[in-house]
């Protein structure tokens, strides 16, 4: 198999690597389809691969014993799934799954660790992404606890928008309700409110972002800090 050429790779983290670092990783990258609902990491089970998305959106979900779920973090072409594998653990209590279908690369954890062992600059870049991801989950916590559903939804739509091409995002109300851990009619109402402001257009199964800057203002500071960290430490996001 011919390794993917770095300039053609759409994963921003892989694109941002130094050529030598990328060259150490590339031979181990195996193209993989990422269908909606695919579970990449199951809670409490050992995993052996990391996933770099070129497209699509994945999320890390946690749940209570009676099945209430909330999304703790979201990623796409900005990063990779399985970062715990670089942090000393090959299992997690969270679920990592594909939320919006896409494609990307799978890489054995052993190969990724091996490449990092020989290349401190590679490890540093991947750990910078972990830092950005932790920053994201911190602001998710802030948003979830302090903001009304409309602002939480605005922030979440911005985070999805960063990870798709174009201004249309394929999302159902059901899916958004699970991600934000709210009742489905709350999503319907919040979309209606945000659409009423002219920030988005909501159609069945699809959201179109119309005014990104207004959405950022509306999110009231809960969107932007993790993204700024990404740009400062890694490179362009999207």
């Amino acid at each position, binding site marked *: 198999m011919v390794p993917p050429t770095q300039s053609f790779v759409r994963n921003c983290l892989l694109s941002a690597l130094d050529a030598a670092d990328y060259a150490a990783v590339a031979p181990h990258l195996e193209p993989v389809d990422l269908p909606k609902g695919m579970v990449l990491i199951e809670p409490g089970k050992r995993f052996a691969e990391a996933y770099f998305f070129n497209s699509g959106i994945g999320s890390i979900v946690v749940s209570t014993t009676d099945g209430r779920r909330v999304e703790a973090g979201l990623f796409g072409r900005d990063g990779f799934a399985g970062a715990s594998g670089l942090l000393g653990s090959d299992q997690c209590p969270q679920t990592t799954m594909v939320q919006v279908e896409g494609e990307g690369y799978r890489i054995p954890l052993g190969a990724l660790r091996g490449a990092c062992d020989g290349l401190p600059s590679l490890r540093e870049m991947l750990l910078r992404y972990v830092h950005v991801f932790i920053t994201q989950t911190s602001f998710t916590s802030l948003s979830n606890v302090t903001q*009304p*559903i*409309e602002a939480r939804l605005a922030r979440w739509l911005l985070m999805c928008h960063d990870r798709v091409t174009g201004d249309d995002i394929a999302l*159902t*109300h*059901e899916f958004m309700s699970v991600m934000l851990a*709210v*009742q*489905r*009619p*709350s999503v*319907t*109402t919040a979309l*209606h*409110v945000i659409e009423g402001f002219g920030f988005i257009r909501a159609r*069945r*199964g699809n959201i179109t972002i119309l005014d990104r800057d207004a959405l950022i203002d509306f999110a009231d500071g809960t969107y932007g800090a993790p993204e700024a960290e990404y740009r400062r430490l890694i490179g362009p996001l999207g």
Partner: protein
Amino acid sequence: MSRFFLHQEIDGDILEDPDGTEAADLAEVRQQAIEAARQLVANAILGGTAPLGRAFRITDEAGQVLLVLPFRDALPPDLFNPG
């Protein structure tokens, strides 16, 4: 399991539920509607406003209205009339 729709009555207008929800029967979907109404009212009140809607119009897949549930009915009965 059947699919039910929780449309909201807003100022003489209807905010449509595009996707619907799966439930075993009307009793189950009524319980979902009660919990949803509580969240809609709570979220609005936290923001210092009244909720947009005032009632759920619960329909089946054919659009037949099965039940109208005023949000008021989802709130504790003694909320504004203690004792």
